[in-house]
């Protein structure tokens, strides 16, 4: 379907060589003041995005992925928040703007789709008004022009009977329809940068597929840059050009999508991947859960933040934190790990875990009557009970 909505404010695609990048974020740090002390939600994240590209940001709850997008967009409260670092949008530094200046950007230049379509819309306002609000404010449209545009937008997001729906209230629509309205609101003024913060987590699989198809189509047509935040690697695998995996407020691995999936370097990415139940596995396959919990960001652990849960942990990991560095073989693949997947240290641990699993599940196949635990199994390196299996 190729409905090009007649939006007068839609900027023509840019992206000429030499033009500034759409978004550049440098070393952004966000801290919240809490009763227990200062909580570092985002800790030194840098990234960049061009128009027409999609960056997937993946991580567990509490990894800082939502705070990152809110920090970039300037949506966080000022009272208990400390921010540093640079956010450069089309060559212009925006992190120091005040609310009035931000209002010029929100909706017009950058917009966000929130997770919960039930709470993202105002329940006592007709949806038409919620879409036309930003059109009237940013693009100074007349009432009737705004209405025409809003109906076209509703049509573009595939809402049946858009004229009728224009005067519906949110409670009259299903969750999937409401998320379409939220997308229409976000797209109204033709933003160049779209944040989608877990846009499908509250929805069913069939509706999720529809919404992701819709987002991809609108992004292509409008040539937007998109940051797709999710906890589901499956959602970004087919949709993002590049993926950044976050853990404890930091990017721990970042690579073009195909490269990330074919050559995972960071044990956390591997663990996240193995925890997903796969359709190809037989039923009752035991899942490789990640033991433990994400770290407390008020008192983060010393060394690598993932070290307490990492199956491949080495003594050095508890002492020093690794920095995000390019892979020697592929400079576009960045990861923060001393002993990435494939290194001799992780391979040794992997073999040991495989042996342990075999012992646990099928001892009859291990034909050593005495001394069954090999010296490697008794090594001092602690191995959490739930381990990742070889991938």
């Amino acid at each position, binding site marked *: 379907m190729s409905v090009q909505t007649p939006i007068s404010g839609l900027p023509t695609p840019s992206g000429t060589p030499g033009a500034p990048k759409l978004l550049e974020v440098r070393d952004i740090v966000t801290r919240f003041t809490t009763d227990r002390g200062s909580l570092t939600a985002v800790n030194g994240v840098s990234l960049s995005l061009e128009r027409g590209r999609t960056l997937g940001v993946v991580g*567990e*709850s509490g990894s800082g992925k939502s705070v990152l997008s809110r920090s970039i967009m300037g949506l966080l409260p000022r009272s208990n928040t400390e921010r540093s670092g640079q956010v450069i949008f089309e060559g212009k530094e925006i992190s120091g703007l005040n609310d009035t200046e931000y209002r010029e950007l929100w909706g017009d230049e950058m917009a966000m789709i929130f997770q919960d379509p039930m709470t993202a819309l105002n329940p006592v306002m007709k949806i038409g008004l919620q879409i036309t609000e930003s059109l009237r404010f940013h693009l100074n449209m007349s009432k009737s022009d705004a209405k025409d545009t809003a109906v076209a937008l509703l049509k573009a997001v595939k809402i*049946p009977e858009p004229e009728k729906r224009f005067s519906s209230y949110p409670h009259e629509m*299903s*969750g*999937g*329809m409401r998320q379409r309205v939220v997308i229409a609101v976000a797209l109204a003024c033709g933003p160049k940068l779209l944040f989608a913060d877990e846009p499908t987590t509250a929805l*069913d*699989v*069939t*509706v*999720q*597929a*529809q919404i*992701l*198809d819709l987002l991809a189509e609108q992004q292509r047509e409008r040539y937007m840059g998109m940051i797709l935040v999710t*906890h*589901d*690697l*499956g*959602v970004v*695998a*087919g949709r993002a050009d590049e993926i950044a995996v976050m853990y404890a407020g930091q990017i721990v691995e970042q690579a073009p*999508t*195909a490269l990330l*999936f074919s050559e995972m370097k960071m044990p956390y990415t591997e*663990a*996240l*991947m193995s*925890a*997903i*139940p*796969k*359709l190809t*596995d*037989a*039923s*009752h*396959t*035991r*899942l*490789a*859960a*990640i033991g433990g*919990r994400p770290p407390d960001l008020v008192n983060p652990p010393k060394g690598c933040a993932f070290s307490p849960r990492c199956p491949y942990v080495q003594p050095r990991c508890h002492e020093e934190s690794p920095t995000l560095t390019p892979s020697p073989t592929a400079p576009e693949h960045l990861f923060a790990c001393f002993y990435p997947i494939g290194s001799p240290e992780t391979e040794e641990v992997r073999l040991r875990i495989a042996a342990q699993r075999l012992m646990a599940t099928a001892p009859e196949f291990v034909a050593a009557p005495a001394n069954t635990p090999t010296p490697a199994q008794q090594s001092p390196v602690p191995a959490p009970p*739930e381990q990742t299996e070889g991938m």
Partner: protein
Amino acid sequence: MAGSGTAHLRQPSETLLRIQNLVVDFPAGRGKKVSAVSNVSFDIASGETLGLVGESGCGKSTTGKAIMQLPRPTRGEVTLDGTDLCSLRGEQLRNTRPRLQMIFQDPISSLNPRRTVMQIVEEPLNIWNIGTPEERRLKVEEVLSAVGIDPEAAAERKPHEFSGGQCQRISIARAVITEPSVIICDEPVSALDVSVQAQILNLLEDMKARYGLTLVFIAHDLAVVKNVSDRVAVMYLGKMCEIGNPDALYAAPAHPYTRALLAAIPLPDPNASLDTEHHLEGDLPSPISPPSGCRFRTRCPLAQDICAQVEPQMQHVTGDQYVACHFPLQAVSEVPVALTQ
């Protein structure tokens, strides 16, 4: 598609829980009714896990609650171990409650925020007057340790001090403490992250082995359902579409709706081509005036005239796979009439 029939039911002697021709209607005002569950039948053998899948609004949660008699089904039979729960009243029904327990989707809101973990998990024992206070305390400690919560540290704390995954562990502890035969899990991992989801799914398997449980596992994520289930039933708009062993069902879905559900799953593999061809269009029709004949026909790519006129009945595919569709994707054999009514 989305039809009725009982061809897929096994002999009553082989099953622990048997649901036959279950109907749940809700009044919708002005004499109308919402037909949430319409003529659904399935059975579960002891120690088996039945996965119930479908979109929101397909009646899977209502079915789960109707088994619990909360609310009571409009019509139909729910037989637990030979007793029809729908015919029980008052004290008799109450006495079956410890045998049927439930785990809910939102772990945080299903625990009383003003009580301690100890009080929450102990409550079922208090209600049923099981054991002395000392025995109860030991039982709570045993169950909490079994679900991976340290009883020492947790007993006097309140739910808000725990993460979502831990709260779900506490809910599971509360459900297993009366040693029920059947637990109905209503989307128990939908609110959790993948890493925590894997922990909870593994835990449910452990609990099942340890306490000899039979599970009804309700979820919308087909991959999750496949992982835990021995049999999967696909529901659409209050009707059953297809039932069968998950490995066979996923490899060769016979119902177009099952195929669409499978196509919609985002795969964590960038090389997997997106199966957009089988993505469903549109939304679920209103259950107040469901489509005539097969309820799936309005969104079905294979629908013909007959689908609007005749409701399909359950037909045998292979093994224990049954489908209710006029144009199934796999060959069906004639219905063995023995069990139909």
